[in-house]
């Protein structure tokens, strides 16, 4: 990649990113604009995918709201993602947890806890 593009992309990247893995339960604090006011809204769920690299990297968070699955895709470096809080580390054997989409009931969000190291 051209160094010119690299510089531009690096300028748009956050210096510090909270660490989290696939299968972790996290809470994303996203900035949303209501009218002319900006406030922070939390979105808590399981990280089921990470995609892309560099400034383009995104992650998908899935949660169940009133029995309906809801997924949101956040760009990691977006200024609209205020911060990410790690709630629980999960033990998974896949890089993409799309199989959770087919699950219903109590199993839908269940992920084994990561054994303490």
């Amino acid at each position, binding site marked *: *990649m051209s160094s*010119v*593009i690299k510089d*531009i992309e690096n*300028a748009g990247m956050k210096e510090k990113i909270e660490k989290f893995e696939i299968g972790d339960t996290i809470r994303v604090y996203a900035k949303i604009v209501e009218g002319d006011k900006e406030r922070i809204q939390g979105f808590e769920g399981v990280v089921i995918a990470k995609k892309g690299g560099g400034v383009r990297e995104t992650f998908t968070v899935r949660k169940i709201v009133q029995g309906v699955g809801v997924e949101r895709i956040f*760009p990691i470096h*977006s*200024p609209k993602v205020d911060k990410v809080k790690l709630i629980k580390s999960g033990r998974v054997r896949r890089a993409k947890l799309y199989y959770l989409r087919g699950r219903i009931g109590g199993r839908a969000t269940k992920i084994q806890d990561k054994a303490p190291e």
Partner: protein
Amino acid sequence: MVEGIIGKKVGMTQIYDKSGVVVPVTVIEAGPCFVIAKNADSKKVQIGYGKSKNTTKSVKGHIKKAGAQEDLKVLKEFACKDMETVQLGQEIKVDIFKEGSIVSVTGTSIGKGFAGTVKRHHFRRSPMSHGSKSHRIPGSIGAGTTPGRVYKGKRLAGRMGNEQVTVKNLKVVQVNADKNTLLLRGAVPGASGAYIIIRKGKA
């Protein structure tokens, strides 16, 4: 002020704007260009850009008259409203553009080679299955004995791309005069590394 500049397409990326929205941008390395000639009658200014390995003597002499470095690669004429303010040999940089202003970009599109009608003219495809033996053929190209020929201008397969294309109404997202870079919203014709012309558009 000269109404345009010559540059080189670097490639595309994405940046976040002030409100945090992702903007797709084309990165362009433009300028510094040098004023080579002025034509007061047509109100145009010729500027040069780039580095050439083999400039002919006649072109070298032409550039030398303006007092610029002699190995410029691309020379191009641009409109200029106030001719008196521009001197020969003067440096033109990307700061002639402002963030948020509108520009049009002219370049040479990527060559596609000998392309069929589906790619070249957006003809519809034939069925891909169910026993169909034709998939991307053009179909009938005219009637029979009358007129007994194919009409001129009939869209057929042939060379595609590698032609001059102008894209209008591109928004300037960022201007960096120190690094001679320009960020435009959206795509620009041509391959990465190709020379392009950026002109001021109607605001």
